[in-house]
């Protein structure tokens, strides 16, 4: 076995152990460790991705060298490695972009706790991406929940505690349902490894046995993960959790944590149940409808919002809706569009959160729109970045949002029954997105000469400005040269089967 095949295992363990090490390090050192670990894992994922692209085959890695069905397994294909790489990039940029705010948001003594949580979060995300074992997935789902809760609560101001409790309850409900589903599945098939379950499920379906328990189990798992990734009717925890936590947390939670669960769902669909079997159930119709509703109601809530962070948070609900709509189409093209949207939304939403903080900082720390008037003149970089993010969200060509919209529409055109609904809701949602994002852009570029706040120049925020530029570039790259990425996604999905 090639040495590179160890990389997924290394990445998970590295982030897990660096989290532990952080607890005894001083805050400064913990920060360095955290950054270095993210970079190292990113590099390893990049190497792994190149290796997988060159071999063109996925591989399965036995943990502890016990063969299936007893041992624990890790599996890496193009999609997994690409996702890990992308998560690392976003994670690094989000951490770097929010770093200058951290001293004001979190008390000094808890800084290394913060880095522990971030490292744990990263390791759980990586485990969700790489694992080939349902129970491991469940364990890391819980680790993910705990660390995410910590990340919300670590900024101890009033509403974050409420937000964290709410997040905890909803999240545990989600993981509980996932666990139920898992138990039923284990009962039916006798396996926990994904590939083995898939075989047994195939047999069950072929023999026509246990149809209803099977569907119930799949539905429970889906709903559990939907709750955790804030699909529309289960999104109540989201605005507070994203709106009041620290900047980096908000960016990471919105762009990565929910995406980790969605990715797990994709793995379950492909690797556990089988794409065709999943599509033959009615579950995809439910996901489709919830997705469409999320696209509209998320945007409507965002329009009503008077707080820029909460507005961006609500827009996440709409974007998650897009992703589930893609699942609901039940075609390969829809899936590719959804996965592309995972990338595009992660890149855009973290950009928006990071840019918004630059705007609120030069507006006396207020999140209210009235105080943000003219903020883009006081912080030019954040203003430009927010504009780019907004244009991408609205779906203007050249930015990543347009490509995902295009992919969704192309996928929709191929599905007879769902075509009109998807296209119409896509249209409505585009216009609604434009309503609140362009309103904000106009607001921050409105001229307010008598605003009592001071501007900030490039010299005072070099690191922050560089992060914003990186984000903008990431967005434009996704928007302009999407084809290789789309091809890679297709290749990765082909490896899933």
């Amino acid at each position, binding site marked *: 076995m090639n040495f590179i095949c160890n990389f997924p295992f290394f990445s998970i363990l590295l982030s897990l152990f660096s989290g532990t090490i952080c607890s005894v390090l001083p805050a400064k050192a913990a920060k360095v460790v955290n950054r270095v670990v993210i970079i190292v894992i990113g590099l390893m994922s990049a190497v792994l991705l190149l290796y997988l692209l060159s071999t063109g085959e996925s591989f399965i890695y036995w943990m502890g060298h016990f063969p299936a069905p007893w041992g624990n397994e890790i599996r890496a294909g193009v999609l997994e490695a690409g996702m890990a790489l992308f998560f690392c990039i976003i994670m690094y940029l989000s951490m770097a972009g929010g770093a200058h705010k951290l001293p004001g948001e979190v008390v000094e003594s808890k800084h290394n706790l913060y880095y522990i949580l971030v490292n744990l979060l990263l390791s759980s995300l990586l485990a969700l991406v790489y694992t080939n074992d349902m129970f491991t997935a469940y364990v890391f789902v819980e680790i993910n929940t705990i660390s995410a809760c910590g990340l919300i609560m670590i900024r101890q101001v009033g509403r974050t505690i409420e937000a964290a409790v709410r997040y905890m309850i909803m999240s545990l409900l989600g993981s509980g349902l996932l666990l139920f589903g898992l138990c039923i599945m284990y009962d039916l098939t006798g396996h926990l490894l994904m590939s083995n379950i898939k075989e047994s499920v195939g047999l069950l379906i072929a023999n026509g046995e246990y149809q209803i328990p099977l569907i119930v189990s799949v539905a429970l798992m889906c709903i559990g993960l939907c709750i955790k990734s804030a699909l529309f009717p289960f999104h109540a925890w989201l605005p507070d959790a994203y709106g009041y936590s620290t900047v980096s947390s908000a960016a990471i939670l919105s762009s990565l944590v929910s995406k980790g669960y969605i990715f797990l769902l994709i793995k379950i669909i492909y690797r556990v149940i089988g794409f065709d079997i999943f599509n033959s159930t009615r579950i995809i119709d439910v996901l489709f409808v919830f997705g469409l509703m999320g696209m509209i109601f998320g945007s409507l809530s965002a329009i009503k919002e008077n707080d820029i962070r909460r507005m961006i948070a609500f827009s996440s609900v709409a974007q998650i809706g897009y992703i589930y709509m893609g699942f609901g189409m039940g075609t390969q093209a829809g899936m590719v569009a959804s996965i592309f949207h995972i990338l595009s939304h992660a890149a855009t939403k973290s950009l928006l959160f990071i840019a918004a903080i630059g705007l609120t900082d030069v507006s006396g720390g207020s999140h209210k729109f009235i105080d943000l008037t003219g903020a883009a*003149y006081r912080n030019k970089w954040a203003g430009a970045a927010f504009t780019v993010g907004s244009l991408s969200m609205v779906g203007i060509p050249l930015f990543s949002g347009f490509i995902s919209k295009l992919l969704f*529409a192309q996928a929709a055109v191929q599905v007879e029954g769902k075509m009109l609904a998807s296209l119409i809701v896509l249209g409505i949602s*585009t*216009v609604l997105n434009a309503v609140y994002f362009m309103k904000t852009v106009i607001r921050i570029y409105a001229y307010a000469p008598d605003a009592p706040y001071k501007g900030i120049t490039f010299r005072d925020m070099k690191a922050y400005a560089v992060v914003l530029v990186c984000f903008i570039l990431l967005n434009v790259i996704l928007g*302009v040269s999407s*084809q290789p990425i789309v091809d890679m996604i297709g290749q990765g999905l082909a490896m899933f089967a």
Partner: protein
Amino acid sequence: MYLILSSILFPILAGLFLLVRYRTPLSGEKPVDRQSLTAMAGCSLIITAIFVIAALFAEKGFTLFYLAQSLPIYFRVDSVGRIFSLLAVIVIPCAGFFSFEYMKHEEHESRYYGFYLLVFGVFNALCFAGNLITFYLFFELLTMSSMPLVLHNGSKEAVMAGLKYLFYSLCGAYAALFGIYFLYRNCGSLTFTVVDGALRASAITEHGGFLLVVAFVMLLGFGVKAGMFPMHAWLPTAHPVAPAPASAVLSAVIVKAGVLATIRVLGMFGTDFLKGTWVQTAWLCLTLVTVFMGSLLAYREPVLKKRLAYSTVSQLSYILFGLAVMNDTSFTGSLLHVLAHGFIKAALFLCAGAIIYRTGKTRVEEMRGIGKEMPVTMWCFTIASLGLIGIPPTGGFISKWFLALGSLNSGIPVFDVLGPVILLVSALLTAGYLLPLSIHGFFPGADYDYGSLQKREPCKLMTMPISILTFLSVLIGVFPFLIIVVIYLAATGR
């Protein structure tokens, strides 16, 4: 290739440079150096104009890059594009020079010139776009870059107007995008053709009915930009709140993007596919309703700039009517009217701007005796008005002549006669809403206090662009043949 690219990129980069370099200062910072700003903007306009004129003679198309698989960003200069960019390259610099004087009494000049140049570049790109996806890209960017011109003065009314403009345009653009998805499936490629259509023959036989719906949605969607009923409401709100030279560009040039889009859509579907279908009938109805309604609303409107905006609604549907008739004669009329209306409406808006700049008067009834105070401006206004009404030998006459002729020869039941009748009625209304201004302007009546008259003629920087545009509007009426040849080439697809 480099000429086309530089005619697009140069103004965009120059605009961005102005936006960054001369941004509105915060309190306590040095004010913007107005002279160097206008010098920069003026030079950029002239250089861009030279690039565009040179690019008009470019023959070969080229692909810049691929947005996604089989979605190239492709540029090519064709005859239709030439006509629209000819319009832009005359009107935008003229109005630009006018604004050097006019913008003295407005704030945030750098923002204005920055976006003005952006609009110029994006419109050039729109003219030179060689396929539907490139066109759509710049269509969206045109909305985005022209919106700041609408909400320029930052008042609540202007911001609301800007948002209204944005939402209508986005709705329209999305409806069009909706159609593009289907065309993408049913066409061999999205590259523009002019007459024969790009639909696969199998697609027409299989989903012909559905494709008609798609065509109608696309025409409606792009029609939003051209202010076609029922989605015209943004135009009379958005155009008048902009600074006058910006209104001129919006009304004379930017709305023509909707017309260009319509021509492109017709080319994609092919006129043979649409002729005689319900789409054509519905479209003819909508355009005629808009022609009549726009004129009527303009007739009732007391504020001069709003009156001109309503008139734009009406006149643009003349053009769309000509396209909807779908024969060569009416197509020629439409394209002639694109030029004629562009020059005339720009001149009219600039006159209105000059009046506002010198006297601050915005309502028509306040403008009695204005011709005695600003004779050059009002003479130009009168000549341009005659052009819009369609009195020979102005450009408006020739274009309307072709429109009426095309309609009468088309053989479409009812509409072949109804069209010209409505065009005539609307021309009478046009006379009704424009000429009183000149009449009362030059002949204020016996009870007028002649003692209060002052000499208020604006400086050359303002009168020259107006005169040039007026002169051109007459010129294309006197010597239409050269343009007709180009247009004929466009109509037949060369």
